[in-house]
């Protein structure tokens, strides 16, 4: 009975115009067609206009000789290298500052975030002041503060601050000795690898033994001895292959050693400390978000507060922390393009130079878009994987 009534009400027999499903699809098709038409029209218009003003187009310019030098570079590059290689130098510089920034910001952020929940009044208030100061200042200002307010005020080369281990600090940056790896250095690396592998094995065995017999084994000290001892053994077996290259005073600058330039330092410090203030709040929110019952539960089980935090609270807080943390990592990476204000040769700065030397504005901007999008998507994928790993596993 009821079914028959339902059949009569079926709108398919009426006009297709009133079928919500058909209508929905029709509208979507129209929208996509308009979108494609719009994009095609914009692209066509651009190409026609560029051709009319006799501006050359295409990505062929990337193979041309760049003709300019870059001071900070991870790979071999000179003025004879191509524009494409210059871009790679820029991408790597962006990656270096982003990765080192993310690591430092995470460490500082976690410390400050936990500090905000400390029982110690001084630590709690200091952490609060830190967060409120740094997250309320625009990142560009923080960068300029480090560059012009701190590093530019350091003494010049002749009056460098001498630091321990043959390091120097002056307004050209931070100089420290560099290891020169001679023949036989591979033994040290081999020793390090062997040390790590052995430590992992020891830790596994110790865990298995504790599970079986309840006896504990000093895993930490054994691993430390292995990781330090094995490379040392390699060092002696290889016939002391490593020497040091100390920075020395040259005509203009210190020569030798490794030089971390003030442009990198200020960008790195600014981005780390700026982003850390946001991460601190995320961490605090994550920890506070774990129900109080959990704290009471671990106390009832007899865990100390440090243990409880490490084994019970943080693992649960991580689930709240990771998704917003990803956004902060992406922000830090994108904020690194502010490097242009202080002359650190990141992707944006080098791309800008290429844009100006070749006049290929549209192409360079497209490359900017693709690279930043690529880096961001890569970070997101990585963090989503990490998130899935940390997610609650119901057993």
């Amino acid at each position, binding site marked *: 009975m009821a079914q028959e009534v339902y059949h009569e009400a079926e709108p398919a027999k009426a006009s297709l115009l009133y079928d919500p499903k058909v209508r929905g699809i029709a*509208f979507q098709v*129209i*929208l996509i067609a*308009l*979108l494609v038409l*719009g994009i095609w*029209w*914009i692209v066509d*218009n*651009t190409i026609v*206009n*560029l051709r*009319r*003003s*006799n*501006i*050359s187009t295409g990505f062929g310019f990337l193979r041309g000789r760049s*003709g*300019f*030098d*870059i*001071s900070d570079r991870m790979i071999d590059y*000179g*003025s004879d290298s191509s524009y494409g290689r210059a871009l790679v130098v820029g991408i790597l510089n962006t990656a270096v500052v982003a990765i080192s920034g993310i690591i430092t910001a995470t460490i500082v952020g976690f410390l400050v975030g936990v500090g905000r929940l400390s029982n110690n009044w001084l630590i709690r208030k200091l952490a609060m002041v830190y967060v409120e100061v740094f997250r309320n200042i625009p990142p560009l200002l923080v960068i300029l503060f480090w560059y*012009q307010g701190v590093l*530019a005020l350091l003494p*010049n080369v002749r009056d460098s601050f001498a630091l321990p281990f043959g390091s120097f600090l002056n*307004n*050209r940056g931070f100089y420290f000795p560099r290891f020169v790896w001679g023949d036989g250095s591979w033994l040290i690396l081999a020793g390090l690898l062997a040390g790590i592998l052995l430590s992992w094995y020891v830790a596994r065995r110790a865990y298995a033994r504790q599970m079986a017999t309840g006896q504990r084994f000093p895993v930490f000290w054994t691993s430390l001895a292995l990781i330090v001892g094995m490379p040392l053994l390699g060092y002696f077996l290889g016939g002391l292959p490593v020497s040091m290259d100390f920075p020395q005073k*040259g*005509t*203009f*600058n210190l*020569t030798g050693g490794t030089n971390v330039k*003030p*442009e990198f330092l200020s960008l790195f410090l600014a981005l780390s400390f700026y982003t850390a203030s946001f991460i601190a709040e995320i961490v605090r929110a994550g920890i506070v978000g774990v129900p109080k019952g959990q704290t009471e539960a671990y106390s009832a089980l007899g865990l100390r507060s440090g243990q409880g935090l490490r084994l019970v609270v943080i693992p649960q807080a991580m689930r709240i922390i990771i998704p917003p943390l990803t956004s902060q990592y992406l922000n830090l990476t994108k904020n690194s393009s502010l490097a*242009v*204000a*202080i*002359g650190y*040769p990141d992707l944006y*700065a080098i791309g*800008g*130079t290429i*844009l*100006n*030397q*070749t*006049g290929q*504005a549209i192409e360079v901007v497209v490359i900017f878009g693709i690279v930043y999008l690529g880096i961001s998507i890569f970070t997101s994928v990585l963090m989503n994987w990490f998130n899935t790993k940390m997610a609650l596993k119901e057993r």
Partner: protein
Amino acid sequence: MKHIAISVLGAAAAIGLMASAASADTLSDVKAKGFVQCGVNTGLAGFSAPNDKGEWTGIDVDFCRAVAAAVFGDGTKVKFTGLSAKDRFTALQSGEIDILSRNTTWTINRDTALGLNFAGVTYYDGQGFMINSKKLPGVNSALQLSGAAICVQSGTTTELNLADYFKANKMEYNPVVFEKFEEANAAYDAGRCDAYTTDQSGLYAVRLQMSSPNDHVVLPEIISKEPLGPSVRQGDDKWLDIVKWTYFALLNAEEAGVTQANVDEMKNSDNPDIKRLLGSEAETKIGTDLGVSNDWVVNIVKATGNYGEIFERNVGQGSPLKIARGINALWTKGGLQYGMPIR
């Protein structure tokens, strides 16, 4: 749905309007809007910098005023856009400005691949180096700069010449590259670099902005040719002609001895050359053929003076820079400035 469709159409229409703004008839566009939009340096003393009253001054600025005077008979009908080295070509290509008059070096790449046309050379320059003689007492040649940190502005021919010069002389250096002129100046003044490099005229201007100008010396080497001049978009010959002949008119006025002070009186001169130049020849068509009025040269000289006057006022003896005419003198006085005949 409807809303999205409408906004997509709206956005497309807006982009269409923007694209059509850079049309091929700049003269009509300029006349329609009532002023010349001129791209200049954000602050290079002698070339284009705001003075203490907030008015733009300098050779590059005065050249734009001369073009405005030729088109409108009024040198004030011009608006200035301050541009960094990096933004300048895009601003011209996209039609944001009508003339780029921003100490820009004429090179084949810019003339061809960038879609520009250079209208002349308003200043023959060359690249040099400046150092702080207090900090580096023994240095008196650029060849002693091996290993130095050098401040330079990005996206300039300067940056390229620098790389070539150090490579050719087998010297090492450490470039510290800034996007903005002001940032490079500040970093050099703070001691971030041992040397500063740009066009020599620019070095004299930068020197005046340092905290203690007398400590800084410009080294004698000139490592490149830097012919600086105004440029326009390719594909608009009429506008190129106006800009080009404004430049030649300034030179011819100087050669004929026509100055801001005596231009009205010179209109009555019997000299046929001067009569032709100032449009007082009977039945003359020189100005109208160019697309401007026949008394265009009178308007130009009234607005800015002749080339020599512009030079002396902005970078020469009448300015703090005190740069000698040198190769920028007229060809009759042993220089390179040569105005094509107006006839």
